[in-house]
């Protein structure tokens, strides 16, 4: 994507060649009180409110170098503009992975993934990006370069900026460099798909999994038109629950057999083990689904896992033709609407779905809304579980001019 086509009010785009130049440009913008829009791979610019103030795009595409890769230490230090695909390729040569799976990995930058706290289906097995960032460098809204953490996996010196900047949406600093911890790639991985006739069956299976002896790294509940076309899944069933397992051959085989036995004991349908090709094909679909930019509205709900099926039921009531992906063991539901809700977002999201999620300690955010209609702080971000006054004080201390990605997040 070229930056000219972005939905941002950019007067120009600068492409600094190194971190010092970037810091200087932010400092210049601060001196002139010009807004700065950090640009990584530009894959998540639909996420959040659309900024209105004119400003300068600051592209990190040239700040994308490998800094250090001591593979035996299972760590990697790179500049923030490096893409997720490049990282995956680089570390795979040593049998390692950063097990965070995001759409458009060939475009998406590691800095952007951290800033948006974007996480894929593998949360149950691998956690989220916050568990992998052990060192971070950024530039605040005045041009002050700062870093936290370091290059070692265990470190409690000073405040943890790695965490503060995770999910910060480029509003507390432009992330310029990160150190990540890595994991070995397991020798085997496979997926089992369980065709289900209704949500009740899904609920039974999911609550039974709490006591399962198996440890799936991903548990996905899928339904809707999108999945009807997926060759890896049995198209006659309205619902599919997929469980992915990894480990040594011995471990994977044991878990596959054990799951089959557990399903049988609970009188649930028989699971079908996918071929390696189907497993890979499905995995790619699972990772890419939330991008759904061609759809009129994509939302993501986060709640405790037991709330998942109730939420899905409510979403289905609102749009029977929607497509759904739930990271069901993690309580995350992505809904791609087939139509922009007739009743509008204040009724559909604020009035209906946000309260359903809240009843399960959760929240709903908009991932993309190409029409831009009814994007308010409340419809877009739901109810943030942190005091706005505290968030605003942090914002003000790191960006006193409100110049970093102004208008994106909930700050007044």
């Amino acid at each position, binding site marked *: 994507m070229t930056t000219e086509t972005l939905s941002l009010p950019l007067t120009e785009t600068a492409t600094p060649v190194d971190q010092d130049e970037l810091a200087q440009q932010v400092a210049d913008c601060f001196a002139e009180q010009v807004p700065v829009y950090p640009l990584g791979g530009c894959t998540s610019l639909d996420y959040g409110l659309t900024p209105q103030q004119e400003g300068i795009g600051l592209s990190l595409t040239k700040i994308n170098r490998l800094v250090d890769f001591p593979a035996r230490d299972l760590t990697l230090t790179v500049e923030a503009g490096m893409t997720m695909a490049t990282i995956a390729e680089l570390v795979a040569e040593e*049998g390692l992975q950063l097990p965070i799976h995001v759409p458009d990995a060939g475009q998406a930058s590691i800095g952007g993934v951290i800033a948006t706290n974007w996480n894929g289906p593998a949360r149950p097995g691998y956690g989220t990006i916050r568990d992998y960032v052990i060192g971070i460098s950024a530039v605040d809204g005045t041009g002050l370069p700062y870093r936290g953490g370091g290059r070692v996996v265990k470190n409690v010196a000073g405040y943890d*900026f790695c965490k503060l900047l995770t999910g910060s949406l480029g509003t507390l600093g432009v992330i310029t460099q990160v150190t990540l911890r890595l994991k070995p790639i397991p020798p085997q991985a496979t997926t089992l798909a369980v065709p289900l006739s209704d949500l009740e069956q899904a609920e039974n299976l999911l609550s039974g999994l709490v006591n399962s002896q198996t440890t799936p790294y991903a548990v996905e509940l899928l339904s809707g038109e999108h999945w009807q076309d997926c060759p890896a899944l049995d198209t006659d069933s309205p619902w599919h629950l997929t469980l992915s397992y990894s480990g*040594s051959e011995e471990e994977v085989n044991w878990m596959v057999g054990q799951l089959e036995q557990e399903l049988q004991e609970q009188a649930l349908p028989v699971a079908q083990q996918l071929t390696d090709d189907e497993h890979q094909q499905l995995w790619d679909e699972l990772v890419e689904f939330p991008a759904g930019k061609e759809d009129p509205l994509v939302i993501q709900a986060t709640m405790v896992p037991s709330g998942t099926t109730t939420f899905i039921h409510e979403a289905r009531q609102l749009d029977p033709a929607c497509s759904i992906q739930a990271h069901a063991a993690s309580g995350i539901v992505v809904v791609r609407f087939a139509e922009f809700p007739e009743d509008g977002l204040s009724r559909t999201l604020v009035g209906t779905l946000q309260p359903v999620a809240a009843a399960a300690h959760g929240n709903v955010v908009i991932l993309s809304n190409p029409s831009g209609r009814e994007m308010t702080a409340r419809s877009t971000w739901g109810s943030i579980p942190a005091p706005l006054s505290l968030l605003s004080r942090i914002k003000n201390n790191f960006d006193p001019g409100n110049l970093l990605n102004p208008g994106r997040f909930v700050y007044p």
Partner: protein
Amino acid sequence: MVSPTIAQVLGPLREIVGAENLLTSASERIVYECDGFVVEKNSPDAVVFPTSTDQVARIVQACNEADIPFLPRGAGTSLAGGCLPVGGGVMIVLTKMKEILEINLRDHYAVVQPGVVNVWLTQALSGSGYHYAPDPSSQSACTIGGNVATNSGGPHTLKYGVTVNHVLGVEAVLADGSIAMIGGPAGEMPGPDLVGAMVGSEGTLAIVTRVWVRLTRDPQGYRTMLGIFESVDDATHAISAIIGAGMIPAALEMMDQGILVALEEAFQFGFPLDAQAILLIEVDGLEAGLDTQRDDIIRLCEESGAREVRMAADQQERLKLWKCRKQAFGAIGRLSSSFCTQDGVVPRTQLPNIFKKIQETSEKYDIRIVNVFHAGDGNLHPILLFDERDPDQVKKVMEASGEILEACLEAGGSVTGEHGIGVEKIRYMNKMFRDSDLQAMRQLRDAFNPDNRLSPDKMLPTAGACGMEQTHPGRQAAL
């Protein structure tokens, strides 16, 4: 003698918590003059034991109105002076807020008050199939609130991570006395990860009054091994080989000969006294894969020159091995009346170099140093033995500690892996971080704690006043 400033807050404090939950006499307050870092001491002006979040909030408001500093404390097992009341003030001890409020297995979380002792949660979950993963060696005494403040580690962090990886949300009293809910049982929230930023902030950002922790499925089984090596180099080579083979053991601990001798005297486990290093290695997970992993580890240890690899035959033997490890520091008393433990970290592949450096330092200063490492994480605990009655030795220990920590920094590491900065390591902050990094840390602290009344003079060096002058090394009891 009660200062006039503190006198004006005693009435309100008594009203909030009741006379039975307020200590004011010097003889009672002296118990709270330090934590596990016993070098620097200062009694708080008053000690309160709130029993509810609302009481904590009102105490903080009362302190603010009287312009008196205040700080939280759990069990006081921290090792860097994190709950030292620098400059006095009101100490808010959270040990009477000790309820486990909820255990929810379906959604794998528990809600606890900050004064819940770490091991109580382990016990409450026993038999449920789930556990709370962080298990610092002081787990039978330390509180979960304290674990959150210090982002505690422990021997199982290699596979399971540290406290922050297991905290989903907190309820906290902010420095202005307001009550905030940050995050919650669902974990992920939009916007900056404030929960993550608060964990490990050593009580300088807020006072945590409730914690949502993640529960982890119990492993089906364990295999616990003891690799016996002729040299530390061989042992560290084995560690690299194991991790290089794609295995992440649940724990990978190294002990050198000095500590082995003390442990053997204390526990008679049958450690060979002439071995230069032993590795305590534990893998856990599905039974299906464990024997293969065990065999691979034994092979890799032997290929790296292990003299022998023993296996814990049963759960009893396994627990005994862990008891040895977790009580290693208790055994130090057999070697020396005074000791000082450091907490440096290096990239794990740098372990042989840093070990050489520790040995050289030991020889240079003529100070005996024994070692217990969380080797899988590259986290060192060199223990410097000395006689605190001898001022010359005291000085040498200070210098030797400094040299070791600086070598950790040169190797790309950190001065603290799990004990924290507190007051003990403030002087290293500007060696580890640039001025601009420290400036940004102040920006964060000031957003939470603008008047700096909450645990002042901790963690960040302050221009002109940096806590207390350190003239004496730490004598620490556990890790």
